[in-house]
């Protein structure tokens, strides 16, 4: 349910955008989801048909790009992927890093036709 409410929000935003730009048919919608965001791509895909039902996005294909969850170690400054390294800096082992990317949930673009 968490994903559904957010996908409905996405559909609203895209519809608004399409209306403003005179787009009537959308072939593809591209979303970007960070690895560290609380959104699960598989669930987004699952509830997408339900969220677009009866909207201008009804026949739109969904594409999801994953953004890496990268962080910078606060102790030694190394940049690394948080998930691959289980949160610990691969250079010095310290588990205290500042998140640089991966929390995003973005509507990247649409392909209109």
């Amino acid at each position: 349910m968490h994903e559904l409410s957010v996908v409905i929000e996405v559909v609203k935003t895209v519809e608004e955008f399409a209306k403003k730009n005179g787009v009537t048919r959308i072939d593809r919608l591209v979303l970007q989801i960070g690895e560290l965001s609380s959104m699960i791509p598989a669930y987004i895909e699952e509830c997408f048909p339900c969220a677009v039902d009866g909207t201008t996005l009804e026949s739109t294909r969904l594409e999801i790009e994953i953004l890496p969850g990268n962080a910078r170690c606060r102790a030694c400054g190394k940049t690394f992927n948080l998930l691959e390294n289980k949160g610990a800096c691969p250079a010095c082992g310290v588990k205290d890093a500042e998140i640089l990317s991966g929390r995003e949930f973005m509507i990247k673009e649409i392909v209109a036709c």
Partner: protein
Amino acid sequence: METFKVMEIKKSVYEGNDRRAEVLRAELKEGKVFLLNLMSSPGSGKTTTVLRTIEALRDEMRIGVLEADIDSDVDAKTVSDAGTRVIQMHSGGMCHLTADMTRQGLECLGTDGLDFVILENIGNLICTAEADTGASRNAMILSVPEGDDKPLKYPMMFAMVDVLLINKIDAISFFDFDFEAVRERVTRLNPGIRIIPISAKTGEGVAEWAEWIRTEVREWKRA
């Protein structure tokens, strides 16, 4: 042949709600209604805390309550019995409230003549932290039986609130709950946070909590 055109949107999905929350916050400020968003997991004592809060402040503020739940009206009944203006909101399965839903709730409640509205959010420590409701201040309750490891498990919630109530403090001797560990974990996530131990059951700490609300309302009015 059909021509395809790529149109860049580059917009955060949360942006729409964030914007609507800012608008609501500004309108509430204009109308002099202080909205407190109260969050916690289910069973932490939110409703009992709300009742205690009403008891402590009803002589000086006109209070309204928005009870948000997935279903039922048990909480609204309890609060209504205490003589406060209250409505029950049903999210219909949704796990958090958005700024739009909060606005609808406030419209149904009617904020005319109210100084202070408590939004008792849905019992959930995850997505309630992500969706800005438009509240003037955010508060959360962690109850002793839930354990002192919760700031480690749900860091976002602890990082975004202005105040943390540690409820059921009267039962601390029955649980392995390390108060100092919680303080240390929480302040690392959120250095400016205020932590108030309370017992909604016995009333311990409620005076300090009421004083926090008074101070915040005063400062919010002045800002």
